[in-house]
């Protein structure tokens, strides 16, 4: 195999597939996808439920079907694929150190690298649940893999901590397979999952959702025997006397996702502490010229359709970089999250490099009704967008057309949320 590529894509999930295809379409010749699993498709392979692709394909697909379409497209090109291959490190000089059973240790070189490593789940350790350490405590995604791909049931009486989408989807999945899901317990006073999933995964199966509650103890010698759930106060501290006991043999944790950036850090790429992902420009380029990033490795998405969009952008930029070199621009505008906004991607915008417009993706910090998203430069308002409903569990996107940037003065673009009709 060759050692020099135009574009090396790290990760063969939805982000990597879209990036590679887009780089190829943009004219990159030698494109390689490196994937650590034995097949392409990433997490979509275990997301057997439907609801994917409404934006992208204008129809409702299951996860494997969505991935399958991209895999077919990739297989119809000469994009090279290395499966069962682990990337160990990437260098600032765009070298890629990887290893697999067939070729052993490899040092590859790329003109451009696209980081599409995705994210991983927070574990029991990350949220420090007190109690015993018995078998039967799984992250929801691990359980999903056991049930949907390997064919193992991981419990008969289940308590789920966290009401993110994966937790909700698993509540339904376990119920369908004959388990009794006793409760879905959420620390926050609202759910982080999509409304449709509350309805079709919890309500359909009469699973109670305990908002403002958490698990305060896990009990069991070899296997989980019971858990204690308690109400929490405004500071998320358990309130004595509110404890409820659930006899169960399984606890599933759906308590957040962390972008997987060990490789980005090994290359000294600038990171955003808000997203735990690389700081990116308007074309998804990181702080290293020619290294791009897209998908959940940059910020955690709710919809795979948006992962595909973002990755196409990165792939296109990588293709252009291979052929025309670096983007030349001096004027940089920094997007800065203000009141009510948790983060914003991209973090940096090169005004001269804007194509038709810039799409800003962000999450709000709490639930809002009838509010406006205000976008201001250092002096004045540039744009505002009305929203009837916003929640931290739902990523927001607004598009700022090119012409608006002619009006931006100063180095900052502030994004904040305010009540409708109220002057700042």
């Amino acid at each position, binding site marked *: 195999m060759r050692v020099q590529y135009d574009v090396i894509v790290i990760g063969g999930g939805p982000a990597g597939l879209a990036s590679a295809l887009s780089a190829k379409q943009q004219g990159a010749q030698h494109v390689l996808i490196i994937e650590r699993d034995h097949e392409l498709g990433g997490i979509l392979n275990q997301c057997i439920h439907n*609801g994917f692709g409404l934006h992208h394909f204008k129809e409702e697909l299951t*996860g494997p*079907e969505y991935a399958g379409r991209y895999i077919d497209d990739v297989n119809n090109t000469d994009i090279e694929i290395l499966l069962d291959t682990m990337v160990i490190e990437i260098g600032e000089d765009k070298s890629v150190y990887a290893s697999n059973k067939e070729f052993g240790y490899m040092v590859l070189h790329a003109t451009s690298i696209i980081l599409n490593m995705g994210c991983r789940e927070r574990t029991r350790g990350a949220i420090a649940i007190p109690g015993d350490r018995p078998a039967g405590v799984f992250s929801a995604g691990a359980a999903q893999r056991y*049930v949907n791909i390997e064919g193992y049931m991981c419990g008969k009486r289940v308590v789920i901590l966290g009401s993110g989408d994966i937790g909700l989807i698993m509540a339904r999945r376990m119920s369908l397979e004959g388990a009794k899901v006793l409760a879905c317990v959420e620390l926050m006073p609202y759910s982080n999952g999509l409304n*449709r999933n509350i309805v079709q995964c919890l309500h*359909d199966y009469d699973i109670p959702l305990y908002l403002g509650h958490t698990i305060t103890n896990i009990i069991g010698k070899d296997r989980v025997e019971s858990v204690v759930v308690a109400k929490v106060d405004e500071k998320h501290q358990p309130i004595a006397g509110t404890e409820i006991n659930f006899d169960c043999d399984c606890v599933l944790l759906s308590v957040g996702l962390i972008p997987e950036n060990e490789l980005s850090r090994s290359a000294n790429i600038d990171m955003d502490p808000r997203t735990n992902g690389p700081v990116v420009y308007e074309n998804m380029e990181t702080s290293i010229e020619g290294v791009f990033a897209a998908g959940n490795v940059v910020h955690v998405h709710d919809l795979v359709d948006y992962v595909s969009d973002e990755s196409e952008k990165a792939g296109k930029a990588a293709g252009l970089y291979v052929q025309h070199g670096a983007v030349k621009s001096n004027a940089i505008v920094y997007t800065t999250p203000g009141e009510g906004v948790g983060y914003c991607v991209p973090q940096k915008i090169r005004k001269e490099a804007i194509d038709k417009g810039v799409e800003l993706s962000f999450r709000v910090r709490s639930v809002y009704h009838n509010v406006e998203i205000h976008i201001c430069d250092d002096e004045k308002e540039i744009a505002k967008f009305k929203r009837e*409903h916003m929640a931290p569990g739902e990523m927001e996107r607004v598009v700022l057309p090119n012409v608006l940037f002619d009006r931006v003065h100063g180095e900052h673009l502030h994004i904040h949320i305010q009540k409708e009709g109220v002057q700042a």
Partner: protein
Amino acid sequence: MKELICIVCPKGCHLKVDEANDYKVYGNTCPRGEVYGKKELTNPTRVLTSTVRVVGGRQERVSVKTSCDVPKGLLPSIMDCLNDVELHAPLHRGMKVIEKVCGSDADILVTKDIEAYEE
């Protein structure tokens, strides 16, 4: 008036359905929401996704779905029915596993390609 959350797409519109007035739907932002609102109160349906056993592939299970939405009450019988299915790799997306499952209008379709694999 009954309040519902539309599950047709991830947007999750808050619907109001007037049972007294031929199930007129308010609050929907697309035509599919109107259909959902009425159906949810008259004959609620869901698309079912699950897995069935597969032999001769690199994994033990293959994902399947109903080709269209089926009455909610049928879901447990369809799940039972899927327990008895065993497929042989190779499999391709869209392959029909069961026709008109449990008397519904839906077929059970494979949703993932599984290559034949020998240890």
